[in-house]
């Protein structure tokens, strides 16, 4: 893990770009004093969680079970590797969130295989759907498995460790020429869900497509994401966790920290770095080097991020 420890002294543009070149297995989040910090899922995480006890949770994303193209002929295998890493952690996280694209084609067998592997963590998993989870003919397989107790197309909230978590769905009713979409019904629910909450309650919003505009030319953003963010204005600590783009990106705006997680299946190119956002084929020997782990630390009253990248190999 040496050579990729970005420390606490801020993040240079070069290092942010370097981080974006890795595809990883998951991000470990821990909450200390109500402020989420994310940590690498192996060595650094173990050290940090030991030093700072509190609620810990994991984020994994974009497992694309069923994907078998050249960029990674065995997406189920790399998901299993990620799960093995999680299981090897000495400090068990409280739960996990999965930010969508569990499957590649929404086939029942893909959902079953994903569940068979992910359940080996023996963690509660809070899912939100990606667009790849809603493409079965009747659009019912995701909801049958993960929709219980949710509203609309599958949004919901829960509280854990003093933090209010909100899972949003921005992959339905997409409009021609547009980006991800939350829709009026979900935004009204969000406003209602937050009503009466103390502004000191840390908020975690999670959804598949980035809620902020990363790269509209590739559809990497949410049309009405700004309206969701208006509803969390005034809260002291807001963390937005997304997937979809298969690489780490981060941004801090005021009290809001945005972060996208890596995929467990295949990397995608940096914005504009390829003709399309499709799966990025790298040399076989490099794939697991790109399936590294990342950690991000948030410190209260400081807006600087500390990022640690740890490739699994090489």
């Amino acid at each position: 893990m040496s050579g990729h420890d970005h420390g606490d002294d801020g993040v240079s543009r070069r290092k942010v770009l370097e981080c974006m070149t890795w595809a990883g297995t998951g991000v470990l989040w821990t909450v200390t004093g109500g402020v989420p910090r994310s940590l690498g899922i192996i060595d650094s995480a173990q050290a940090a969680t030991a030093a700072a006890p509190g609620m810990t949770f994991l984020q994994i994303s974009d497992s694309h079970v069923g994907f078998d193209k050249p960029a990674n002929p065995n997406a189920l295998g790399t998901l299993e590797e990620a799960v093995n890493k999680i299981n090897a952690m000495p400090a068990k996280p409280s739960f996990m969130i999965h930010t969508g694209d569990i499957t590649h084609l929404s086939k029942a067998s893909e959902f079953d295989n994903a569940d068979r592997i992910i359940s080996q963590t023996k963690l509660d998993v809070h899912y939100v759907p990606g667009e790849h989870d809603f493409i079965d003919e009747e659009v019912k397989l995701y909801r049958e498995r993960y929709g219980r107790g949710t509203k609309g197309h599958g949004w919901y909230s829960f509280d854990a460790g003093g933090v209010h978590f909100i899972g949003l769905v921005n992959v339905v009713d997409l409009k021609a020429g547009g980006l991800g979409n939350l829709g009026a019904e979900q935004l009204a629910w969000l406003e209602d869900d937050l009503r009466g909450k103390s502004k000191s309650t840390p908020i975690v919003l999670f959804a598949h497509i980035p809620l902020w505009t990363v790269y509209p030319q590739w559809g990497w953003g949410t049309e009405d994401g700004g309206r969701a963010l208006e509803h969390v204005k005034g809260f002291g600590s807001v963390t937005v966790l997304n997937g979809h783009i298969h690489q780490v990106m981060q941004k801090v705006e005021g009290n809001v920290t945005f972060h996208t997680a890596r995929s467990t299946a295949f990397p995608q190119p940096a914005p504009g770095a390829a003709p399309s956002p499709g799966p990025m084929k790298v040399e076989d020997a490099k794939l697991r080097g790109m399936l590294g782990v990342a950690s991000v630390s948030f410190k209260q009253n400081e807006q600087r991020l500390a990022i640690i990248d740890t490739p699994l190999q090489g």
Partner: protein
Amino acid sequence: MKTLNRRDFGVDLGLALAAAILLPATKARADDLEIHIDNFVFQPAELNIKVGTTVTWTNRDDIPHTVVSAGKFRSKTLDTDDKFSFTFTNAGDYKYFCSLHPHMTGMIKVE
């Protein structure tokens, strides 16, 4: 997933000649057209066709796509190399897009 018409069947098997004999009613019209999906782009993005023309979309990406024209036609999810065909029997402008990646748009003008 795959939308196969009889014409595809014949061509796929390399039996175009036999197909033309056995299936004269589905013999490919000279003005039937193909659109490819490559790198998240419909190519060509705009087509001008005559009424009665059949257009066939083929997904050549490693990621699934759809072809949707609101209220007019909607393909199933097209995995790699899957095809979708639609015969345009009415004149008009048909804007369409991929419902999974809505920044992908195209237009068929039928006269």
